[in-house]
């Protein structure tokens, strides 16, 4: 018999979603919502930072979405979703009390436990902060086990900053350094304008003792990895989260496959060195 990985509940079919209730909705941005979900039977949902679930909008379809909540609060399953097409649109229209299907968690996440003792540089771009948030919670919950902790976040404009209240809260802490930069802004924005790689150039960390987690649009990750390497960070200590179309999320169907690697099963988080060729493969 299979075991549902998130809840340790035996299920007949690993493709079969469990029904979760929407218990909270937060509109983060005009096109982005965060859903708080609860298993009707009140069972906890255990996961690792960086893992994802397949979320099913009944009658519409199923999509992979990273978990954006806190591993230390397993009673609350949290997902942050940006509307791009019909399934994500259906999630954005949900109301409290509605139900969705959830199967997971899947994949390999951020190796938070393997980088203890290092400086940690977390680089997020746009919605890429959502899959990084569980890693940030986890690092901060064990703050004494890491060296410098640096969070660098880039977004399109000041109106596109995700988790703004939390950014303020993190910025107020003495034990981490957080810097935000936007691509463009109107006069009056007190923060930085430029590319997120500029923040890497000036951040305080020891490159030889640094592990970096990078998540955002692929183009942003490519330049961020390059900027980290230029600072002297070994790219085998740089981890990136990849997005590929998915169907089964179990390593069966091959939808997410490149070469011998399945993003759903071997990722979505990879050490950059192991998938660097993916970043340089041109589609046309």
């Amino acid at each position, binding site marked *: 018999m299979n075991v549902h990985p998130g809840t340790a509940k035996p299920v007949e079919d690993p493709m079969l979603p469990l029904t979760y209730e929407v218990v909270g909705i937060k509109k983060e941005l005009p096109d982005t919502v965060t859903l708080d979900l609860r298993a009707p039977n009140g069972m906890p949902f255990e996961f690792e930072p960086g893992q994802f679930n397949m979320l099913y909008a009944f009658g519409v379809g199923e999509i992979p979405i990273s978990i954006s909540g806190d591993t230390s609060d397993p009673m609350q399953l949290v997902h942050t979703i*940006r*509307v791009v097409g019909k399934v994500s649109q259906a999630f954005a229209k949900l109301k409290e009390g509605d139900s969705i299907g959830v199967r997971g968690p899947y994949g390999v996440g951020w190796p938070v436990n393997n980088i203890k003792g290092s400086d940690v540089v977390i680089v997020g771009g746009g919605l890429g902060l959502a899959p990084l948030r569980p890693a940030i919670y986890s690092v901060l919950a064990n703050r004494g086990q890491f060296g410098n902790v640096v969070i660098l976040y880039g977004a399109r404009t000041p109106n596109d900053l995700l988790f703004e209240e939390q950014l303020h809260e993190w910025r107020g802490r003495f034990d981490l350094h957080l810097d935000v930069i936007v*691509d*463009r802004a*109107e*006069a009056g924005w*007190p923060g*930085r304008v430029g590319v997120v790689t500029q923040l890497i150039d000036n951040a305080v960390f020891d490159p030889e003792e640094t592990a970096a987690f990078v998540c955002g649009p692929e183009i942003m990750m490519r330049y961020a990895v390059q900027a980290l390497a230029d600072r002297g960070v070994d790219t085998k200590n740089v981890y990136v989260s990849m997005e590929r179309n998915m169907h089964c999320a179990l390593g069966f169907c091959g939808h997410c496959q490149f070469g011998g690697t399945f993003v759903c099963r071997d990722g979505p988080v990879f050490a950059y060195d192991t998938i660097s060729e993916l970043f340089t493969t041109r589609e046309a």
Partner: protein
Amino acid sequence: MVDQRDMASIIGEVGFFDGLPPDTLELLAGCAKNVRFNAGDYIYREGQAADTFYIIRHGSVAVQLHVPGRRPLVIESLTTNEVLGWSWIVAPYRWSFDAQCVTLVRALAFDATCLRTKMETDCAVGYEMLRRFVTVMSQRLRGTRIRLADMYAPTVNAAD
């Protein structure tokens, strides 16, 4: 008042001048002074003569494009240890944008005429300065090009 020797050692601590020999630092110090601006002050305006260049020692400056009928657009912000302005090195030596202080700003200001004269009479100094400015220009151009890709834009309009 900072004397020339102190100024040379201040300049020597700025990353942009890393590796310059002491006599070059002395030479640059002869063209430099400390300046201070308040938040909201304009350091320069588009179209004015570019007769100075700055290294920011403290604070943040917004490089702005004035767009008629709209609020000015910040195209880049610069902060501690960063170079502000290169129009002084490229004819016709006029600023292309406005530079407004976001916070109190302390900076090293270099007299452009003085520097250009020294760069022309001492080719080694000229080469070193150009080499450093080309690096900064190339980094900024790369940043601008990456931003042109509008990489955070949603793939599909949510309203579609």
